[in-house]
C-alpha cells in the first residue's frame, strides 16, 4: 500500500509539474468566468423585466426563474462533459505511455508489485480528476448562487453522482491503459462513453415513442457504460419541481435531463464496475510481459 501511495504521489506531482493542473485551472477559470458573465447578464435582464412588469421580486424556484435554472443545469452538463474529457485525456497513457517509452522498466525492476503500481496510478489520477470536477462544480454553482441567489435543490448528491461517473471513467481508462496502446485506449474509452450517451438517447426516444425495443437497447447501453445514467440521475437532483413538471409533461423528450431519480442498483453497479475495472487492470498488468 505504501508503494501504491508513492506512485499516487508521483502521479499528482507529474500532473502539477507537467503543468496539466495549471493549464486546466487557467482554462477552466476562463470558461467558468465566461459562463458566469452570461448568467450575470441573464440575471440582469430577468430582473429588469420583473421591474418593468411591476413586480417587487421574483421567486428563485418559480417559473420566472426557469432561464437561470436551465443555465445552472446546462452549466453542470458542461462541467460533466469537461470532467469526462479530462478523465480520459489525462489518464489515457497512465500505464501504457510509460510502457511505450521505456520508463516502466526501471520502475518495475524495483521492489514494487505491479498491482500496487496500477492502484497508485488510478488513485493519483482519480484524485486529480475528481478534485478538478468537484472544484469546477463548486465554482459554477457557487458563482450562480452568488450572482442570482439560485441554488439547485440537491446539489451535493448531484455532484456526487457526477464524481462517481468521473471516477468510473478514470478506472476504465486505467484498465484500457493496461490492455491497449495509448491511442487505441483513448479511442476505445471515448467510443464506450459514446455508447453510454447513445443509451440515454435511445431510452429517451423509446420512452417518448413507447418502444420497448429502444428501451431495452438503452438499458443495455447504460449497463455497459453507466456514465450517462449517472449524469441523468444528477440532473434529477439539480432540477426544482417546476422543471421536473415541465420534463414530465414532455414525456422525457429531452435526452439530457431526467425527471426520475437514478435507480440505486445503477449507482451500486457503477461503483462496482469501477472497482472491477481496477481489479482487472491489476490482474492483467501483473501477467503482462514488458
Amino acid at each position, binding site marked *: 500500500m505504501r*508503494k501504491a501511495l*508513492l506512485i499516487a504521489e*508521483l502521479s499528482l506531482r*507529474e500532473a502539477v*509539474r*507537467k503543468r496539466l493542473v495549471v493549464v486546466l485551472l487557467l482554462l477552466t477559470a476562463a470558461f467558468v468566468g465566461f459562463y458566469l458573465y452570461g448568467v450575470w447578464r441573464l440575471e440582469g435582464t430577468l430582473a429588469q423585466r420583473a421591474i418593468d412588469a411591476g413586480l417587487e421580486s421574483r421567486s428563485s424556484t418559480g417559473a420566472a426563474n426557469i432561464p437561470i435554472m436551465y443555465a445552472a443545469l446546462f452549466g453542470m452538463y458542461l462541467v460533466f462533459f469537461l470532467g469526462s474529457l479530462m478523465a480520459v485525456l489525462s489518464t489515457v497513457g497512465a500505464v501504457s505511455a510509460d510502457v511505450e*517509452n*521505456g*520508463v516502466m*522498466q*526501471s*520502475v*518495475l*525492476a*524495483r*521492489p*514494487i*508489485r505491479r498491482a500496487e503500481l496500477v492502484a497508485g496510478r488510478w488513485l493519483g489520477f482519480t484524485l486529480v480528476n475528481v478534485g478538478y470536477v468537484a472544484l469546477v462544480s463548486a465554482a459554477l454553482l457557487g458563482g450562480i448562487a452568488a450572482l442570482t441567489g439560485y441554488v439547485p435543490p440537491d446539489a451535493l448528491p448531484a455532484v456526487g453522482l457526477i464524481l462517481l461517473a468521473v471516477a468510473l471513467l478514470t478506472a476504465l481508462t486505467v484498465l484500457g491503459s493496461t490492455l491497449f496502446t495509448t491511442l487505441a485506449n483513448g479511442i476505445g474509452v471515448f467510443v464506450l462513453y459514446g455508447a453510454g450517451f447513445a443509451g440515454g438517447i435511445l431510452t429517451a426516444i423509446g420512452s417518448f415513442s413507447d418502444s420497448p425495443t429502444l428501451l431495452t437497447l438503452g438499458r443495455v447501453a447504460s449497463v455497459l457504460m453507466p456514465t450517462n445514467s449517472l449524469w441523468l440521475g444528477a440532473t434529477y437532483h439539480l432540477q426544482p419541481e417546476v422543471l421536473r413538471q415541465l420534463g414530465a409533461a414532455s414525456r422525457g423528450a429531452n435526452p439530457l435531463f431526467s425527471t426520475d431519480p437514478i435507480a440505486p442498483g445503477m449507482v451500486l453497479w457503477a461503483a462496482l464496475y469501477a472497482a472491477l475495472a481496477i481489479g482487472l487492470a491489476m490482474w492483467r498488468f501483473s*501477467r503482462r*510481459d*514488458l
Partner: protein
Amino acid sequence: MSATIETRELRKVYRGRAVVDGLSLTVGEGEVFGFLGPNGAGKSTTVKMLLGLVRPSGGEVRVLGGSPDDPGVRAQLGFLPEQFRFQTWMTGEEFLTFHGRLAGLAAAEVRTRVPEVLARVGLAGRGREALGGYSKGMLQRAGLAAAILARPRLVFLDEPTSALDPIGRVEVREIIEALRGEGVAVFLNSHLLAEVEQVCDRVAFVKAGRVLRQGTLRELTGGVVPVEVVVDTLSAELRAALARLAEVRHIDENVPGRAALELWVGREDILPALADAIHEHGARLYTLNPRRPDLETMFLDLMDHPASAPEVARA
C-alpha cells in the same frame, strides 16, 4: 561457488518463435559476468526475465536464491536499462529520491545516498537540474546512479557506456571494478568486447537464445596464453628451444634484423623460461608480450561456426 544467478533451460516463446531457447547459465557471488551475443540473440529478453519484467515460457530461473517475481529479491537488484528513459520532468535528485523510496530506503539514507551516487557517476552539482535538460551521456550516468543507489547485491548493466565518451567509459569501468571490490555481482550486457575483456571475470556467448560457451577467458581459450615474441635473429637452435617450451604458431622473418613469433604457452610461469632461452642462445629480445585472450576473434569465430564451439563450464 554459490550462484547469484542460475537459469536452467530457460525459454521464452513469442508467437511460436523461441527468442530464448533452453538457456542455462550460472553467475557466482561478487562476479562480473559478461553476456555477449549478436543482435537478436535474446540477451535483452534474458535480462528482462532475470528482472521479472518478462515471464519465462519454460525452464527455471533463480536470482539471489529466489524468484525475480519476489519484491524481496528485486530489493537487492540494481538495473540500468539499455533504453535509459526516465521521467524527464523530474530533477536528477528527485529521480534518485523516487527510486530510493521505491527501493525501500529510509528517508535519512536517501538524503545521504543521493549526493554520494551523483558524485560517484560524475554528476555532482547537477542534481537539481531537470532530467529533460540532461545530455544522453548524463542520462545514462543518472541511470547508473539509480542502479547502484540502494546498495544492491547484483547489478544489471545493459550497454552501460553506449552514450558515454572515453572518459565516461573509463569511469564506468572503475565503478564496475569498485562494485566487484565491494562484493557486488555485475551482469554486464555489452557490445564493446574490449570493455568486457577488461572487467569481466567470466563471460557467456549466446546466439539464437542459447549459451554457446561460458567460462573465464582462460577457460574459453583452452587455457592457452598467446605470446608475441620479437628477437633480432632466430637460429635453428633457438627455434628448437622455444618449440620445447611452447607451441610455435607463426614466424614472420620478413623484416630484416627482426624475427616475430607467435607462441602459445600452457601457463604464464613459462614466460621467464622463454626469456632465459632467448638469452642463452645469444639472441637479443625486443618484445615478449603475453596477450590476453582476444574476445573479438573468439566472438566472431563462435558466431560464424557455433557448432564447432565446445561448451565450457556449462551450468
